[in-house]
């Protein structure tokens, strides 16, 4: 969206001099008229005229012919801009909207290099499905121009006997980072021919490489470039990203080189309207709204009836099926006619998916209901209306899906229907998140110690390190020494040689920091079948003895947990309840990096020592959700050092603001819930990447996670009224990985924004006493409390915000560049 200039309009603005109403405009008008109250925001993106550029003069005539065969006589300006950068050997990131022809930005220079000089290229996509689509497109271009270019996928599905052909004959090899990490780099000598001619590395969907995954991938790229140097090549990286706030910065961190940014799209687009839609409240007391599903189905029905091609995105496969059924009931009642509604999701056979894609391109389908499987890359032609059943988690992802609707010279409509999830509710109440520049910064921390150590191991296996050599920008001498002491390396004559009998890449997953996954073993009938694998971090919460572990809704009970052996033995059971762990997290501040204290409120960030303990569990009956029993859990504490941001109020402030400690605690718990939601969004992370905890700032007591039960230093439950002499409840948001993954420092810079947005969110929530969308679930009894948990949370946030507001005011007076710009500060 960076190049578009969205304009916010009043929900009922009738534009003067607007062009004659199109079908989309008529639908928008109708939705406004009938459901105006559900539309919490409306934005329009004006139509954008095309900006073209001539084909490059040095373009191979066969390629020009291939383009002509597809009706391309000129390029969009950004495609030409990308060509010029790439041909000049400059690393490039292309960050233009969906459907602006990004893939041609890299395919063109790559194909040129292949036909010119049999150069090779490596394409990396985050998923296998995207790889296959890309190969299909390359084959199409190849055939159109009779180029003789060989493009192959290389991933876990590539049969063993085909792999050699891919390695030795492929001009373009399309793979994914996991395969590069585990299958290609540790065997690079088999790929020697390929590497010796490698000129381009293409990385699409760059914005997905953030957080832990991105930090790992940055190191895989360090290893790739190291291997390339061994073969005497220095390939040019061509990358594509969705429109996030910092594509150039992300690309430079991933590549550790200067990267040119191409973000002015020359592709035309029709005008676009986006409606933010909140389902109506059906129970005001509990803050319960009508389901997003019912709203999405209704909007899609109206759109299809208006003759508009429509796509509905749902978050889960099951939801795709449900919505498809409802729409088919409306439109496909006559079995003799070809279906007007189709579903598209992972798990379908490739042939079926290709068939749906083809029908969509040909215009034979009126409505498709899809998961994110259709979000990226796949060519389905252009549609008129895009309905999002639920917020996809990031603004960038939202725009990417909305980009599915919109053809040249025709207006398009997107509707984001909020679910009851806190993030959804926050987003539809804060339409300005969709305005102007993206608020989302993709961040990575390639030098995170554990991740770096993992990849130093892998790199040492691939080629011996020389003294003084770095891995990318990271100095690794100490890590090499550490690995030598561990018996994995041997230092000799200025080189560090791998000597262990292991294949380190197999032990390193790019998607986690954990080393010791647990396997779930089904011991039913004396068997030993492994039926699931659980991350180390999730094991204590899900695999304690007595836990009901669900697979495809089938219940298994954990009988024995072998913590050291990383195994849980389960047996199929017929329980009518599920279990919910009672856990709490104690944090102790080890080092404070920065802090501020104003108006009775303090914020700081630093390193913390964290102990997580699972104390027991509750048995909860299905459907009624009543608590039918407790069990004890005896597991070792899980400890880690990580980084955190924390907020607290001075004891005097709390004493005047709250009649009791219990009520203040309710307020802090509710505030923590809201702040966690907001912080997740602002740092573009998954909810599990950030942990939250409410406890004493001196670690004297802590609350159970999500509950107001207070536990003392030894884990005993205690009354908050007597928990400690001075009452200093603190909200901690911590980076949920050992060593941290670099979320805390940016979060500290966003501290005022986190509080202000949380306050806005809780205040604006339609519920009476608090609900899962704002401060988290509350008990029925709390609805009648003198001051509701919601009011308590508002009081806490107001006091935290007062300090923030004062700070912002002072800064503005001082004329400093500040957090006024939505609190976002670039590093």
């Amino acid at each position: 969206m960076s190049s578009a200039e969205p304009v916010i309009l009043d929900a009922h603005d009738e534009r003067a001099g607007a062009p004659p109403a199109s079908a989309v405009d008529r639908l928008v008008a109708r939705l406004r008229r009938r459901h105006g109250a559900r539309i919490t925001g409306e934005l329009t993106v004006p139509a954008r005229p095309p900006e073209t550029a001539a084909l490059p003069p040095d373009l191979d005539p066969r390629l020009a012919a291939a383009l002509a065969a597809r009706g391309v006589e000129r390029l969009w300006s950004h495609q030409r801009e990308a060509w010029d950068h790439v041909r000049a050997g400059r690393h490039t990131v292309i960050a233009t909207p969906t459907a602006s022809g990004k893939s041609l930005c890299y395919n063109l220079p790559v194909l040129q290099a292949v036909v010119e000089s049999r150069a090779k290229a490596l394409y990396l996509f985050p998923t296998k499905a995207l790889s296959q689509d890309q190969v299909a497109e390359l084959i199409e271009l190849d055939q159109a121009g009779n180029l003789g270019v060989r493009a192959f996928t290389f991933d876990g599905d590539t049969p063993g006997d085909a792999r050699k052909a891919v390695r030795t004959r492929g001009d373009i090899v399309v793979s994914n980072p996991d395969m590069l990490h585990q299958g290609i780099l540790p065997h690079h000598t088999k790929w020697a021919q390929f590497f010796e001619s490698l000129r381009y590395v293409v990385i699409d969907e760059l914005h997905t490489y953030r957080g832990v995954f991105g930090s790992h991938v940055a190191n895989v790229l360090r290893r790739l470039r190291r291997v390339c140097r061994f073969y005497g090549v220095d390939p040019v990286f061509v990358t594509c990203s969705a429109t996030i706030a910092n594509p150039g910065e992300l690309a430079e961190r991933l590549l550790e080189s200067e990267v040119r940014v191409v973000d002015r799209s020359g592709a035309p687009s029709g005008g676009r309207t986006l409606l933010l839609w909140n389902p109506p409240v059906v129970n005001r007391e509990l803050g319960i709204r009508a389901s997003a599903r019912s709203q999405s189905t209704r909007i899609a029905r109206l759109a299809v009836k208006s003759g508009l091609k429509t796509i509905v995105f749902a978050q889960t496969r099951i939801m795709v099926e449900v919505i498809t059924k409802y729409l088919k009931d409306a439109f496909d009642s006559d079995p003799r006619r070809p279906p007007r509604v189709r579903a598209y999701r992972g798990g379908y056979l490739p042939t079926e998916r290709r068939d749906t894609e083809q029908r969509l391109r040909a215009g034979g389908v009126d409505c498709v209901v899809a998961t994110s499987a259709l979000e990226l890359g796949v060519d389905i032609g252009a549609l008129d209306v895009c309905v999002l059943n639920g917020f996809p988690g990031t603004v960038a992802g939202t725009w990417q899906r909305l980009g599915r609707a919109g053809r040249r010279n025709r207006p398009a409509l997107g509707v984001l229907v909020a679910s009851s999830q806190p993030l959804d509710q926050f987003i539809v109440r804060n339409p300005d998140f969709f305005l102007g520049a993206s608020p989302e910064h993709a961040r990575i921390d390639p030098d995170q110690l554990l991740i770096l150590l993992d990849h130093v191991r892998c790199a040492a296996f691939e080629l011996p390190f020389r003294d003084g050599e770095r891995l990318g920008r990271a100095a690794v001498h100490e890590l090499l020494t550490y690995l030598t002491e561990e018996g994995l390396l041997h230092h000799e004559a200025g080189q560090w040689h791998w000597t262990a009998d292991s294949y380190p890449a197999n032990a390193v997953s790019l998607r986690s920091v954990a080393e010791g996954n647990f396997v779930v073993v089904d011991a039913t009938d004396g068997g030993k079948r492994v039926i699931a694998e659980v991350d180390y971090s999730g094991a204590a919460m899900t695999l304690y003895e007595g836990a009901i572990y669900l697979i495809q809704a089938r219940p298994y009970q954990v009988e024995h947990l072998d913590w050291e052996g990383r195994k849980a033995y389960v047996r199929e059971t017929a329980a009518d309840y599920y279990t919910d762990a009672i856990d709490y997290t104690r944090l102790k501040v080890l080092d404070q990096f920065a802090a501020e204290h104003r108006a009775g409120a303090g914020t700081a960030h630093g390193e913390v020592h964290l102990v997580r303990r699972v104390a027991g569990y509750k048995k909860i009956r299905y459907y009624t959700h009543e608590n039918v029993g407790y069990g004890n859990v005896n597991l070792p504490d899980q400890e880690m050092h990580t980084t955190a941001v924390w907020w607290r109020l001075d004891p005097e402030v709390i004493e005047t603001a709250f009649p009791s400690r219990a009520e203040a605690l309710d307020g802090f718990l509710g505030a923590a819930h809201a702040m966690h939601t907001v912080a997740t969004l602002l740092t573009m992370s998954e909810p599990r990447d950030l942990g939250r905890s409410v406890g004493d700032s001196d670690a004297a007591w802590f609350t159970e996670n999500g509950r107001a039960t207070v536990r003392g230093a030894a884990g005993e439950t205690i009354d908050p009224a007597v928990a400690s002499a001075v009452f200093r409840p603190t909200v901690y948001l911590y980076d949920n990985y050992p060593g941290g993954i670099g979320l805390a420092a940016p979060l500290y810079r966003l501290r005022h924004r986190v509080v202000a947005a949380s306050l806005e969110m809780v205040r604006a929530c339609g519920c009476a006493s608090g609900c899962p969308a704002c401060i988290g679930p509350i008990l029925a009894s709390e609805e009648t409390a003198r001051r509701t948990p919601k009011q308590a949370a508002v009081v806490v946030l107001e006091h935290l915000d007062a300090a923030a507001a004062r700070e912002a005011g002072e800064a503005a007076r001082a004329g400093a560049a500040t957090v006024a710009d939505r609190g976002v500060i670039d590093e």
Partner: protein
Amino acid sequence: MSALKGRLDALRRASGAVTAAPPVAAATTAPVAESGLSRLRARIGESRVGAASATRHGGDTAALAAAVGGQVVDDGLVLVESRLEAGGRHGRARLRPEACREALDSLAPGATSSGGAVFVDTETTGLAGGTGTVAFLVGLARFEGDTLVVHQLLIGAFAGERRLLEEVAALTGAASAVVTYNGKSFDAPLLATRFRLAGLSDPLAGLTHVDLVHPVRRAWSRRWPDCRLQTAERALLGLERVGDMPGYEVPEAWLAWLRHGDATRLRRVVSHNRLDVLSLAALLAPVEACLRDPVRHGACALAGGTGAMPRDEDALYRYLLDRRADLDDRALHELGRLARRRRDWAVAVPLWQALAERGSAEALERLAKYHEHVAREPSVALGLAERLAAALPRDARHHARVARLLRRRARDADET
């Protein structure tokens, strides 16, 4: 440094690593020696180290040569050379160069006249494969006249690897075939990787590769508990290794030298490798003979197919037919299948009957089909089908056959 180590250990424990016990006692002396070593090496700089390296572990090539009974080839590289004359013993077998050459020509036609074979076996730092595994010992044997000469190249330091590879190339040079045991999947790709990393061309790449594990598996995988080289030696050569080093101890033995200058176990690695290489030469003739006539050698009758034994069906049919008295059930089934395709019922039917008597449902089914469709004896077929349905009650096809035959009997009864 210790701060980083403490931090890393704590972080790794927090992430679920099952952390090893603190480094073993030996390591307390090793790092000291090593750091002294790196200072020394820094002083020596880029110049060839030569005799100056005598003070370092993993670099005292002369000491290593003495320990394993070899000679220094170059800094970091030791050669152990030995011979086995014609008629020399290896297990119960004796070296028969002529039989060896004939077998080679059968398995790799023309190999003897065009340069002969080199027998190769490597000892490595592990089985993981990929670029991080090193072949620290390569044993190669070649015939010089009727004498089998074994060259074992052992590196005492990574610095010796390049020279080792050059020596391997030189010793392989004239050969036109390479004989290994499981070398197609392990030794050859591993050496290819090492040559590639050293920037040298792979001398094995152009050779005919005779990997004995494949015929051995075809012939004996159903008769032996496993098809490891030592199992084959025991069965085919009568060789019982005494005090041999188990394979999993091999990497540690070399690392003990590399890290701590302890060569005590390397002598055993060298002799283990020598036996491996000699066995390759000794196994060539018995394995080839077995492919030619597997039944006579007590192997799986279907094992043929390399060299002497043609793979075509007619030849296999004749071979099995000639030896039908000695075949196991699996081979009998195959003979039955081939006979059926040739409509040679006189062979097939008695064979199926014998198999069915021994409880083979497959043979019973074949017989039932034969009597229903070929011999057209529905009552015999019905009896067989009923036996089959009783034996395999969950297979609907057999019940269908019974029902069909019953219907036909009823119909036939009506017509008469």
